[in-house]
């Protein structure tokens, strides 16, 4: 294809993305230096760095930032380990493997708000089955989403339930590309199952898993639907991530300038992850 034709083919999509994404981002950056109540008749007022200064002294913002990072790192780490474990479990053929692979697709394809509602019922202290099950096993009932201490770990647990399958799928795809001869040779040389896993599987899957972890981290940072539908950031702000706090500041408190500043900080955090992804990509060429 020649140059002009390439541009012709690519330009509608490129133009659309620039109009629908690049322009709004620039607008948000500008808005973060302004004060605006969202009124379409009263124009935004320029306030310089005030919004950012307020944020630095805002405990709720700093907590939300830390919480966003904790949520992401914690959930993704567990998802990686469990995802690989489930992949190794499902890798070898067995009767019903097709069905098993369909089942693990369900959590990541189902509508997040619906999943949130289902888990609200599952974890409900009085009518939910989860507490009945664990008290039946002789363990103490848990407050789950209703306690300030357990709400964030509970949401992380749900994220793990929802996204471990994605890690499993990526690991399975990666495992399918590994050369069988290497394993056979290692087995002939007397390497045990653990050694084969440690010395062959992990190094060869490394690039795939790094890419998976970064892509998943970017999505986990942005988690909104389930948290907003289940807790709205509560109790007492204890499940408020940057995404939720930004939304509440803008669309519930009508401080759009300050909300924009929160979003800009949030952008920067996501950008760090994206840059790391791009760097690793150019080294290993795993994701394009």
């Amino acid at each position: 294809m020649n140059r002009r034709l390439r541009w012709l083919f690519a330009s509608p999509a490129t133009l659309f993305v620039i109009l629908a994404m690049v322009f709004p981002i620039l607008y948000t950056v500008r808005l973060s230096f302004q004060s605006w109540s969202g009124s379409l008749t009263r124009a935004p007022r320029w306030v310089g760095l005030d919004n950012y200064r307020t944020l630095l002294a805002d405990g709720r913002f700093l907590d939300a930032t830390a919480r966003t990072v904790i949520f992401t790192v914690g959930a993704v780490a567990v998802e990686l380990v469990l995802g690989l474990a489930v992949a190794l479990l499902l890798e070898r053929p067995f009767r019903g493997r097709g069905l098993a692979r369909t089942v693990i697709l369900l959590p990541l394809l189902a509508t997040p708000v619906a999943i949130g509602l289902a888990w609200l019922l599952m974890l409900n202290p009085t009518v939910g089955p989860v507490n009945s099950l664990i008290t039946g096993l002789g363990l103490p009932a848990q407050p789950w989403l209703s306690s300030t201490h357990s709400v964030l770990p509970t949401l992380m647990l749900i994220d793990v339930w929802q996204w471990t399958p994605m890690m499993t799928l990526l690991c399975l795809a990666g495992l399918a590309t590994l050369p069988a001869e290497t394993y056979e040779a290692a087995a002939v040389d007397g390497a045990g199952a653990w050694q084969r896993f440690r010395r062959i599987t992990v190094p060869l899957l490394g690039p795939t898993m790094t890419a998976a972890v970064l892509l998943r981290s970017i999505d986990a940072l942005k988690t909104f639907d389930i948290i907003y539908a289940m807790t709205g950031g509560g109790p007492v702000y204890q499940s408020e991530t940057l995404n939720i706090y930004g939304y509440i500041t803008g669309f519930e408190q009508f401080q759009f300038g300050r909300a924009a500043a929160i979003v800009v900080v949030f952008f920067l955090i996501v950008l760090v992850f994206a840059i790391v992804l791009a760097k690793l990509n150019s080294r290993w060429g795993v994701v394009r």
Partner: protein
Amino acid sequence: MKRVLRYTTIVVVLAVFLAPFLWMVLASLRRHIDITSGRLFGGSFTLRNYRTVFDDFQFGDYVVNSLVIACWSTALSLLIGLPAAYAIARGGMRRTAMTILVARMVPGIGLVTPWYILFNYAGLTGTYTSMVICHMLVSLPFVVWVMMNFFEGLSTDFEDAAMTDGAGPLGAFVRIVLPLSLPGVVTSGILAFIFSWNNFLFSLVLSSKSTKPLPVAMYSFIGYSEVDWGGLMAAAVSVTLPVLVIALFVQRYIVAGLTAGAVKG
């Protein structure tokens, strides 16, 4: 012994992933009194919750809204995404590829305020047009991502032959490349549809009463009902079921699409 252990583990793992769905369906078929007293098995089942949701809360209208928005955004994403993916795959336009794929990474919360203002100026606030436009930003990157990997894996022999026979590049693309790429087009279309169907944040801010799609309608249903668990679960099942049915039928395609590009074979 080892085999029994392995099968038991598999069954337990699958049960954990399935449990919330089973519970959701079960609760949606039970009377309120049965759910609150913790009796989910035995006794009679009822469709009353679904009647409440569809008759009293007009869920049928929201199903239509969701369908209209998801179908249009998928169709338009395919229309502009397929040629772009083809140009990227054949012409190596890395910067263009990055621009489009960054749309997947940008936090949606930073886009909704400017969109709201823009749509207001354009007189499009709360219309289907505005909903389709913002949903396209969700579905387009999926189409481009899946299809540029698919096109790269496709041999150029056929289109070269077609062009030697006098077909133009556009003709070769439409008549030769696209039919050969049907599995990829189906995959990317399904994924684009599902992620538009599931979208919550954009719709929460930008939809109006008459264009509200299912996830937002379901969310507002929480406030209406004094924790009517049966009704809530009937709503949740109605939203999730179409997606799960699609997943059952085209499982293999979806897996291929979701893992596209992450693994170099």
